[in-house]
């Protein structure tokens, strides 16, 4: 039973990374918004995942993406920041009655009121650090904030679409 879940999880992670490397990384909209959809593999990990292991995983994913883009350290720093705040977000946003075994991080399961702030909040932190290091100056802070905001929304929409594609919500029979 557990082996099957682990297999499913690894399979999903590979699909998200595959979509990012093959398609999404080439989709800058209007030269402003980037689609950093690989962040889904960290954001959508099961709620019960160990925080320390999540952070090590985020470090590894960030490093992989950095090698791909030849941007040593930038994605890694942003991913680690996001993994750290993911643990805090999950603590702050405990729904009334606590997390249940069947809950997964998706908007049919958690509802819009939980899912949208969780995703956009973490994506904003990730993208903000990413663009801040990329521009490495506070002079262009307006540009950094604009790109962060647009890219967060773009990435969020992309992740929701991909999630609907590969794990269609089950019908409530």
């Amino acid at each position, binding site marked *: 039973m557990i082996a099957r879940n682990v297999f499913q999880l690894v399979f999903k992670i590979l699909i998200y990374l595959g979509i990012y490397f093959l398609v999404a990384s*080439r989709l800058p909209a209007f030269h402003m918004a980037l689609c950093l959809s690989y962040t889904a593999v960290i954001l959508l990990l099961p709620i019960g995942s160990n925080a320390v292991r999540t952070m090590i995983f985020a470090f590894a994913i960030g490093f992989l993406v950095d090698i*791909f883009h030849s941007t040593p350290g930038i994605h890694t720093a942003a991913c680690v920041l996001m993994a750290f705040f993911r643990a805090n977000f999950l603590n702050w946003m405990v729904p009334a009655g606590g997390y249940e075994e069947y809950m997964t991080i998706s908007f049919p399961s958690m509802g819009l009121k939980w899912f949208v702030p969780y995703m956009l909040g973490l994506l904003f932190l990730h993208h903000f650090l990413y663009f801040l290091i990329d521009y490495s100056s506070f002079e262009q802070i307006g540009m950094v904030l604009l790109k962060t905001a647009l890219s967060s929304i773009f990435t969020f929409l992309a992740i929701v679409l991909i999630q609907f594609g590969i794990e269609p919500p089950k019908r409530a029979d």
Partner: protein
Amino acid sequence: MGSLFRFLYEYRLFFLFVLFEIISFWMVINKNTKQQIAFLNSSNEFTAGIMGVSDAVSGYFGLVQENEKLAGENARLNALLVKSQQTIQKMAMDSIKIPEMLDQYTFIVAKVINNSVSRPNNYITLNKGTLDGIKSGMGIISPQGVVGRVMVCSDHFSTATSLLHSKMLISAEISRIHSSGSLKWGGNDPDMANLEFVARHLKPKVGDTVRTSEFSNILPEGIHVGVIKKISLKDDATFYNIEVDLATDFSSLNFVYVIENKLKAEKDTLQFHTTGQTE
């Protein structure tokens, strides 16, 4: 001692976070050293392999435009061929033969397999490397115009600095009035660049063509760069602010030519002996 360990364990998540961030920032800061570039670079075989597949996937969507571009280039090259035949005939009449001058530049066709336009410093990855004769420092052009300069090469791949890079300067001139300046990207719009150091006594016009000048060490003279779109001159400024609409569409780069200048070493050595410095 025990309580120290308990304290560390209690806040292990935070300490791990700080440790990882320190490692990341160390990587960011050290990215300019040579070893780092050689190791953590998209010209390494593994990532370049992935990019090759990715490019093969997205390549299908641009076939129509690519065909049009190739047809256009065919026409341009045919015209060029006619012109060069005329020049060769003229040269044949001259008794002095300098083979290196006639054959100063060689062109190597390469395919762009990774490219970005929306970062403050953009790089390009090409599918040819040292085994195909590409060396660091060679110039790159596309059928439409100037592209950039080769930075690092591995056996089968190379990475290049795009013109859309804050440290990239290209020596260019306004062809109509032969006044040269430096072309530099503004940092935001991938279609526009600034032509700097055009003195105020000159009279550039909107619509003038900008080409590479003969001062450039990496690119041949006369490669198309773009068209002047906006000119402004402040009352107290020595130089014009000139915005150039770039001919190259960086967001759809596909096939490019890497240019080898066979006389570069000779020119560099001579200039080094005269001034004691290289470019």
